[in-house]
């Protein structure tokens, strides 16, 4: 299963195969505050991809994510699907938060024993 590591916080989310980055981070309790339409139309949720590769199975408008951005390490998180393990860089604490409160159980649930 692919993982998404967030730097510099070091948070690691364990995604399900084929799961978009943003949906996976949310499911694991990690909050990305800079989120727009969640459907690839606005470009609000772009985050720097510093390691690994992502693919886009759904069509994304060139006006939202250019071909150059796709190859230069910009990850449109709502539509990007990791090809193996990836690392994202979010320096700004205003736009991201590690899980607190009950949210911290969300990632553990995925990492822990598989439910029968």
């Amino acid at each position: 299963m692919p993982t998404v590591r967030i730097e510099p916080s070091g948070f690691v989310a364990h995604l399900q195969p084929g799961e978009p980055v943003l949906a996976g981070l949310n499911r694991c309790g990690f909050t990305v505050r800079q989120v727009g339409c969640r459907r690839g139309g606005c470009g609000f949720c772009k985050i720097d991809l510093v390691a690994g590769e992502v693919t886009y199975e759904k069509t994304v408008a060139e006006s939202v994510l250019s071909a150059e951005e796709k190859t230069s390490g910009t990850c449109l998180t709502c539509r990007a699907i990791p090809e193996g393990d990836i690392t994202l860089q979010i320096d700004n604490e205003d736009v991201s938060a590690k899980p607190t409160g009950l949210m911290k159980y969300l990632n553990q649930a995925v990492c822990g024993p598989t439910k029968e």
Partner: protein
Amino acid sequence: MGVMRMGYAHVRVTDMGEAKDHYANTMGLYETRSDVTAEGNKRTFYKGWDEWDHHSVVLEEGGVGVVKYGWKVEYEHDLEDIEKKAREFGLTVERMSKGDNPEIGDGIRFTTPSDHVFEVYHEATAIGTEVGTHNPDAFPRHLVGVGAPALDHSLITAEDPALMQSMLEQVFGFFATERVQTSLDDDAHLIATWMTSTNQIHQLAVLEGPQSKLHHFAFRLGDWNEVGRAADLMAMDDVPIDVGPTRHGITRGQTVYFFDPSGNRNEVFAGGYLAYRDRPVSVWTPEQLGKGIFYHARELNDRFTTVLT
């Protein structure tokens, strides 16, 4: 009387298959035509159950955002009148011919000061509704999903909302029902305006922002219960909800904002009071803008004012 209503919104979608699932199965619009443009783009035409003209929503595959809006006038001579007023306002107007848009008659086309394309027409193929006009029942029995009856209004962004307000007043004969401005002073800066030509509380709203962009287009619903039920259906269909259900301070309408599968923002809108030309305009100033937009939460967020297609 000139412009009666926004007759159609023509928008771009990235994937026609997913878009059709949303507009037909979640929103419950009726598909009335599908074709391919000369450029090779797939298109799908829809109407709501309570609309009699051929279509009110056109989807075109390729990109996101709005292609154009169609405005239906009451009389054929309204076209000449609006053409004249548009030229007087300084706009470049071109004629459009019957068939330029399927099932839409002759008309005019111009680009607004906000860089949106407006078409004005008088004739559209009338295909009627399932309930008909003779002893009609209250609604069709087998509506799908939300079962939206009709397109209601749209909100667009413009660098100069005051200029758009002048254009809509002078060319379309619209009047403002509500405004957001920096203060109550005479020289206040206009931030947003809600405009109409009828008792409908708004047909087009214009918000300060980038040129040519779509904030949302909205479908009409009957009441709070229908708005709540629509939100339930969005949860069932994994439609991303932006805001709501809540009420607007501005217009008093009840609402859910959500996104289509391409990221274009939609709204379902119910209520709103009756507009009149002689009704004093409601004015909102920035310190209460949160309440004006979202009456219950009373907080604006970045996403609502900057996520556009």
